């Protein structure tokens, strides 16, 4: 189908965006890559009166490394992150997750910030940001505030963003050389929405012992959440058939999957256990 009619403004500065948001309130939507927004407009699931194109605001773009801190602009595309040597060096989890996001033609346009602000329960970046303990930089006329990824995602397509705010960038500390990460996702067709996926990160000792383990799932709940019981089952342990089984067992406490078009709840829980085993094996490798 075709999108319903709307007005369009190409904003030149954040100040202009704040003016427009103030003036139009919730009848306006921000347009970045538009890879989710335009699909929902085409399907008439949304009908904003105004689209504010933010893609020409330079300060929202780019990937920047300052010491141990990586700053990813909201407008960085999935493809930019996938190609970035800096990301591969400092935040390998993001490099591992990027190829799972939709397809090449969509990764070329869709943005990091757009995906996070949209907060689709099957999206890859939210789970990665939760695991990486990322800080989201939210800007508004009133100033700047920082919200941790774990507080940012509040439910199905629901975030801590206020109506007058824009997600400007994300700050993440580089994962050190003794850390290991893994991203595993299952979907019917490569690049389709995940049936279930997992992002995992841990510190690994020379003896192969995992600590500070962080595991978060996508596609199983309304928002990404840490799998705390599983993490506790693995903390301070080596990866083995026994610890994988214990982590899988504990997932029963962590996850309450709901059925969707792809799979029944019990299938999702089973698949979550399968990919947890794969992710842990990858961490240990």
């Amino acid at each position, binding site marked *: *189908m*075709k*999108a*319903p*009619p*709307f*007005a*369009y*403004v*190409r904003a030149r500065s954040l100040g202009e965006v704040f*003016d*427009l948001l103030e*003036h139009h309130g919730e009848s306006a939507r921000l*347009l970045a890559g*538009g*890879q989710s927004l*335009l*699909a929902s*407009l*085409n*399907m008439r699931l949304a009908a904003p009166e*105004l*689209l504010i*194109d933010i*893609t020409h605001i330079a300060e929202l773009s780019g990937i920047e490394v300052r010491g141990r801190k990586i700053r990813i602009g909201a407008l960085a595309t999935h*493809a930019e992150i996938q190609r970035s040597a800096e990301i591969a060096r400092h935040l390998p989890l993001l490099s591992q997750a990027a*190829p799972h996001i*939709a*397809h*090449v*033609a*969509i990764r*070329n*346009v869709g943005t990091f910030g757009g995906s996070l602000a949209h907060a689709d329960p099957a999206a890859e970046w939210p789970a990665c940001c939760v695991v990486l303990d990322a800080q989201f930089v939210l800007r508004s006329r009133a100033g700047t505030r920082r919200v941790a990824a774990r507080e940012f995602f509040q439910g199905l397509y629901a975030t801590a963003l206020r109506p007058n705010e824009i997600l400007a960038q994300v700050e993440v500390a580089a994962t050190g050389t003794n850390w290991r990460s893994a991203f595993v996702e299952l979907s019917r*067709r*490569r*690049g389709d929405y995940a049936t279930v996926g997992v992002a995992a990160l841990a510190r690994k000792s020379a003896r192969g012992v995992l600590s500070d383990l962080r595991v978060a799932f996508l596609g199983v709940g309304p928002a990404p959440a840490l799998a705390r019981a599983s993490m506790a089952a693995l903390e301070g342990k080596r990866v083995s058939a026994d610890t994988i089984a214990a982590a899988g067992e504990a997932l029963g406490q962590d996850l309450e999957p709901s059925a969707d078009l792809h799979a029944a709840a019990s299938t999702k829980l089973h698949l979550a256990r399968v990919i947890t085993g794969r992710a842990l094996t990858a961490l240990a490798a």
Partner: protein
Amino acid sequence: MRRKKEIPLEHAPEITVTVNGTIVTRRVPARRHLIDFLREELGLTGSHTGCEHGVCGACTVRVDGRIVRGCLMLAVQADGRRVDTIEGLSDSGELGELQEAFHRRNALQCGFCTPGMLLAAQDLVAGHPDASRSEIREHLSGNYCRCTGYQAIVDAVEDVLAARRKST
């Protein structure tokens, strides 16, 4: 109190796009997709409109050298940019080897997916000449074909990559 500015909202902004090397200036409704702009305003009907929500890849075109979904981009977003379609890339000869291989391998039946498939395949041929068969499949995963079952398409792309490796 801060003065409220009047904000100009455009329902049909004027855009200038370089389409297959030709500079085109038009006024387009904001809601018009790039694919409909190309097909209906410019008569470039080689790129197809399929699912219209980003799943099938029939509308794949190139914007500033990178493949995109024509149904998930507004024409106004292409303002100031370069757009290349199957028509331009066929005329320039860039797709010649792939087109020949698709023909030889029977990699199309109805042909509806072919323009998008060729653009996605060329993106791989140009950017990843060492791609394995599974990498070809992965790269083309965003393009649906409902006739051939993909084997012949993957064969054709593999042929082109192999021929290129041989000649260098």
